[in-house]
């Protein structure tokens, strides 16, 4: 026996002896994904660990340690706070405020009517206009939203899925009007419909035409908007809906496989679109599990793209991702405690090598954030960046016995799910059968039971609660906005050239019935000030609407 093994055995005996006198806090320690956490990790846990195969160097396949050679030593991650509420004027003001405060990219929250392709004056929009994001019913609103913000100097992320083509078209046209050509634009559209069916709910059309719209965007952007991230394949909402960390990665990568497959079936060469795929993950509470998750995700994706899809361009192998701290971990009780949760989650994302980050505000279990709360959330990132030193070396935890063992274990468990979903016929089939939804729902219910039994502690909620808290100052959205937006729309409809709008919508309808790329038709309709709802409804008439089964 080697000296190491001998000493390890001796340690284990000593530890057991200690435990027999002073039991540990729990009989078993485990992560959110039910991966056992051992008392101690040592070189023994990595005995057949091949550094070059498992980790290699930053900027090198399989990218476990990060996708760039220097990571945050070159440039910090993009600090990108998700913002949007009320009218385009109000959100434009918040955008400019955040840019003045040192934010480095924009991230647009749209209200639910916009996200589901309804105009502000549609009966379905009742009560929802401007509530969870900005209301954008036409190009006119989009012009206001980006007024005074030069689109060649800022990168903009847009959380828009089913109508992603419409909002991207509006962004391109606003840029045109600023004299900025589309090849100068940088940013991201979420454009990830599969997770809408699974977890987020802002779907419009059934899967097949939705996949077509997505591949149309891939194709159009590869040609005309080459620096745009055409999709942000999102585990964030899957996790928020209650999944474990392993499920978050597994379902997201399974969805990603479906998008790649669809684009290849539409005869797009993989290396033409794959470098523009991006991802979006959650940073949740279990610190090391989260860091391991990000590293495992990078390694798995690199293998999928290189071996399964035979991509040749290393850029196609790199999993680039945005992270948001976990909204569902925030408590309505003692909301200032959330600042601490967010700090730890943000740190996990950065130790996991994220490309951009949104830190949640302390008051988001109660309402949209106030300006003050949003500023503290941004400052949290700035303090980590400028004061803590964690960004000064690449992948500082690489080589940790625990972290590498956990990264390997997560990878194994993710592959098990991916293989299972492959056997079911891929992500679309798994979603249609309700498989992902059921898995997530079970995990969510288990979490709730664990919290109620006290097995899972939530500080301020089921432990260390206080009575009679003073409610904090909250942001209120103008309840009159629905009416104001409706009046604006009526004015727009009376002032634009309605014959031209009609003509362009008809051209779009005809194109949708065939198999042309729809982006040029949508751009034409947007230029004539056809509204979000009119364009979405034109496509509804051809594609139909998705009606979920209840599982």
């Amino acid at each position, binding site marked *: 026996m080697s000296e190491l093994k001998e000493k390890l055995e001796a340690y284990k005996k000593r530890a057991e002896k200690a435990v027999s006198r002073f039991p540990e806090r729990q009989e078993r320690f485990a992560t959110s994904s039910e991966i056992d956490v051992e008392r101690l990790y040592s070189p023994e846990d990595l005995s057949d660990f091949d550094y070059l195969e498992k980790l290699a160097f930053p900027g090198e396949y399989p990218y476990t340690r990060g996708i760039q050679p220097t990571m945050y030593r070159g440039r910090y991650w993009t600090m990108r706070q998700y913002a949007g509420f009320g009218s385009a004027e109000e959100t434009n003001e918040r955008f400019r405020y955040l840019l003045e405060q040192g934010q480095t990219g924009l991230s647009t929250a749209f209200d639910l009517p916009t996200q589901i392709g309804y105009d502000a004056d549609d009966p379905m929009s009742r009560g929802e206009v401007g509530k969870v994001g900005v209301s954008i019913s036409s190009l006119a609103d989009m012009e206001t939203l980006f007024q005074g913000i030069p689109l060649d100097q800022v990168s903009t992320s847009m959380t828009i899925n089913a109508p992603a083509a419409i909002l991207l078209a509006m962004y391109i046209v606003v840029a045109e009007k600023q004299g900025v050509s589309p090849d100068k634009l940088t940013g991201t559209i979420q454009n990830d419909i599969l997770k809408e069916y699974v977890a987020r709910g802002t779907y419009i059309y059934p899967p097949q035409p939705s996949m077509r719209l997505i591949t149309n965007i891939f194709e159009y952007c590869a040609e005309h908007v080459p620096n745009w991230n055409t999709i942000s394949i999102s585990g964030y909402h899957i996790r928020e*809906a209650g999944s474990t960390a392993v499920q978050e990665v597994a379902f997201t990568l399974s969805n990603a496989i479906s998008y790649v497959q669809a684009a290849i079936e539409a005869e797009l060469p993989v290396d033409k679109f794959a470098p523009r795929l991006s991802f979006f993950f959650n940073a949740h509470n279990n610190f090391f599990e989260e860091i391991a998750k990000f590293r495992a995700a990078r390694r798995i994706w690199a293998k999928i793209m290189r071996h399964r899809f035979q991509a040749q361009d290393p850029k196609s192998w790199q999993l680039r991702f945005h992270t948001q701290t976990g909204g569902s971990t925030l408590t309505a009780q003692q909301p200032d405690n959330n600042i601490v949760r967010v700090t730890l989650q943000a740190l996990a994302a950065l130790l996991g090598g994220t490309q951009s980050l949104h830190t949640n505000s302390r008051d988001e279990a109660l309402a949209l954030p106030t300006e003050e709360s949003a500023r503290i959330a941004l400052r949290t990132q700035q303090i980590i960046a400028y004061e803590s030193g964690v960004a000064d070396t690449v992948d500082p935890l690489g080589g940790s016995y625990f972290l590498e063992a956990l990264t390997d274990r997560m990878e194994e468990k993710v592959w098990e799910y991916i293989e299972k979903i492959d056997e079911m016929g891929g992500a679309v089939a798994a979603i249609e059968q309700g498989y992902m939804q059921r898995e997530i729902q079970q995990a969510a219910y288990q979490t709730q039971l664990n919290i109620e039994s006290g097995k899972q502690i939530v500080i301020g909620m089921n432990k260390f609660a206080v009575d009679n808290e003073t409610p904090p100052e909250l942001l209120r959205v103008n309840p009159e906005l629905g009416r104001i937006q409706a009046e604006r729309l009526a004015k727009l409809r009376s002032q634009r050239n309605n014959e031209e709008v009609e003509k362009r919508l008809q051209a779009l309808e005809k194109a949708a019935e065939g198999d042309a790329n729809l982006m040029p038709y949508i751009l034409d309709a947007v230029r004539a000030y056809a509204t979000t709802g009119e364009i979405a409804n034109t496509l509804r008439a051809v594609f139909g609407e998705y009606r979920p089964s209840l599982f």
Partner: protein
Amino acid sequence: MEHKIRVLVAKPGLDGHDRGALVIAQGLRDAGMEVIYTGLRQTPEQIVAAAIQEDVDVIGLSSLSGAHLELFSEVARLLKEQGIDDILVIGGGVIPDEDISALQQNGIAAVFTPGTPMQETVKFIRDHVRKGAV
């Protein structure tokens, strides 16, 4: 005659966050109630029609998008308009304290915000539901 408590869990408006609605639906089922879940994107009219058709004792409304004041109140108003006063209407979601009293005035019997144990909701329903339902 006694019957199991029947609950309609409903998502009014366009909000897609149904984790809470699904968890509470399962929790109420585990507590022995019969639960019907409407799915997403229901108008107040559809919710009231479903409640009548399913002859429920309770409507549980969930919204996390800030549309609660308008949409929850509209469900209660429509029930009243149709002369229905024996269906208990409760709500949950991301709802600021200051809105709760307004909702109660409009006929929402109770509002359960994040962090509420399921047992509290179960107990409230049992204590307030119309006679005959258990």
